[in-house]
C-alpha cells in the first residue's frame, strides 16, 4: 500500500459526525474566548475577524480537495460535504456577529450592504452560498441529477473569490495574510482550468 492509500484508509475511518462535531464546536470555542477576555479588550472585532478567517480557511480546504487528490492521491472527498457545510456555518456566524454585535441596526446593515463595496461583495458570496448549502445532501443530488447539481456547486468558485476579495478589501493597508488567501484561492482555481475547459468544450 502506498502512503496515500494508507492515509485514505485512515481518513475513511473518521466518521462524518466527528468532522461535523469538531467543526461546529470551533465558533462556540471562539465565543467562549471572546466572553472570557481571551480575545482582548475589544472582543466584537476580534470575534468577527476570527470567524471570517475560519470561514476562509474552510473554503480553501474545500477548494483544495480535488487538486490534492490529483496531485498526491490523498482523498478528502468523503468529508468534502461536511467541510463545505461547516464553511457555510462559519460564514453565517461571521455575518451574525457583524449584524447583531457589531452594526446592531438592521437599517445600517442594509445601507452598508448597498453602499460599501467590500460588504456588497461579501454579501454576494453569502447569498450564493445559500443554494449550495441547501442542496448539499443526497436527496438534492438525486432530484437535480448529477450534471445540474455539479454546475450549481461550481458557484463555490465564485464564493471563494468573493470571500477572499472581501477579506483583502476590508484592510486599511495591503496586508500579507488576506493576499495569501486570495493567492491560494486563485491558484486552486487556476489548477482546474484545463479540466473545466475540456468539460465545457465537450
Amino acid at each position: 500500500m502506498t502512503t496515500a492509500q494508507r492515509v485514505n484508509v485512515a481518513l475513511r475511518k473518521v466518521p462524518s459526525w466527528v468532522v461535523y462535531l469538531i467543526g461546529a464546536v470551533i465558533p462556540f470555542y471562539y465565543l467562549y474566548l471572546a466572553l472570557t477576555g481571551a480575545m482582548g479588550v475589544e472582543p466584537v472585532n476580534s470575534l468577527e475577524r476570527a470567524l471570517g478567517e475560519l470561514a476562509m480557511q474552510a473554503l480553501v480546504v474545500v477548494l483544495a480537495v480535488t487538486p490534492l487528490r490529483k496531485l498526491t492521491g490523498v482523498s478528502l472527498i468523503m468529508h468534502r460535504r461536511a467541510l463545505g457545510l461547516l464553511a457555510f456555518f462559519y460564514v453565517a456566524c461571521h455575518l451574525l456577529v457583524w449584524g447583531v454585535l457589531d452594526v446592531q441596526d438592521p437599517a445600517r446593515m442594509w445601507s452598508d450592504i448597498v453602499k460599501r463595496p467590500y460588504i456588497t461583495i461579501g454579501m454576494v458570496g453569502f447569498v450564493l452560498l445559500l443554494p449550495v448549502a441547501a442542496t448539499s445532501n443526497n436527496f438534492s443530488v438525486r432530484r437535480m441529477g448529477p450534471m445540474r447539481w455539479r454546475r450549481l456547486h461550481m458557484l463555490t468558485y465564485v464564493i471563494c473569490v468573493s470571500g477572499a476579495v472581501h477579506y483583502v478589501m476590508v484592510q486599511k493597508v495591503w496586508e500579507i495574510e488576506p493576499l495569501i488567501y486570495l493567492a491560494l484561492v486563485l491558484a486552486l482555481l487556476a489548477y482546474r482550468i484545463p479540466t473545466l475547459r475540456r468539460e465545457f468544450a465537450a
Partner: protein
Amino acid sequence: MARRWTNDLSRGDATPKQCYLNRRQLIAAGSSGLALSAWPAAAQTDALEPNSFEEITTYNNFYEFGTGKTDPKENAGQLTTSPWAVEINGMVDKPGTYAFDDIMAQMDIEERIYRLRCVEAWSMVIPWQGFELADLLALAGPNPEARFVEFQTLMRPEEMPGQEYPILDWPYIEGLRMDEAMHPLTIMATGLYDEPIPNQNGAPMRLVVPWKYGFKSIKSIVRITLTDDQPSTTWNKAGPSEYGFYANVNPTVDHPRWSQATERRVGGGLFSKRIDTLMFNGYDEVAPLYEGMDLEAQF
C-alpha cells in the same frame, strides 16, 4: 503659560491606580456580589469612565510595531526612549535639537482626560499627562509666517519591526494647521495614569489632538518643522479619499468603507452598545477654527 483650558472630566473620574491595577479582580468581586469600597462612586455611574490602563496599553494602532492591535504591546518593549531629543526647525527663531529631559524641566505638566476617537470607529477615554504644544513651540519661537506644523515619528527599523514592511511610507508624518497646533486643547502627552507614557502609546512624547481621529495624534516624535506649506501626511498619502488632512471627528462624513455616525467604546465587552459619535468628538470649542470651511470637502 499652561492651564488655559479646564477639563470637563475631573481627576475623580479617572480610575485611581489601586483600582486599575486590580480592575479584573474588582470586576470579579463585583459580579460575585461583594461591595466595591475602593471604587469611586462616579466611576460606576459616569458614562465617561476612563478606560483601564490595561485597555489603553493593549489595544493600539502603532503600525511601526505591527498592524495587529496587540502587536505594539508585544513589540515595543525594545524601543530605546532615553536619551531622546526632538529637532525643532523651519520657521522658528531658535531651530535646534531639544533634549527631552530639558523640555520636561521647563514644562508645566498637567492632566488631561480626553476622549479618543479612532477613524476605525472605536473610542476610549484616556487620562493623559502632558503639556500644551503651544508651550513647546514657544521654546523655539515660531515665526509669524509659519502656517503649518509638520511632525515626524522616529525611524528606527531595528527597533520598530513594522518599518521593515512598506505598508506605509515611513517615517510616519503628520501635520496641523498653526491655529490647530496653538489651540489649548492640543497637547504633547508624556504620561498615562501618572506613569511615563508606555512605549506602545508613543513614548516618550506624542501628540494628542482630541477632536481629530486618532491617527493625527502622532507618536514618538523626533522632529517638528514649522512651514508655510501644508504637510504631506502619511495616511493622507496612503488613501487620499479615505483619510483627509484635517481628519476632524465628524459623524456626518463617512469613511468610504464604513459609517462614522457611531462608535464602540473599548472595554464594554461583547455586548456593548454602540454610542453616537459627536461632532469634533464633543469638543465644540474648536468649531470656530473651521468657520466657513466645507467640512465635507475638507474632511
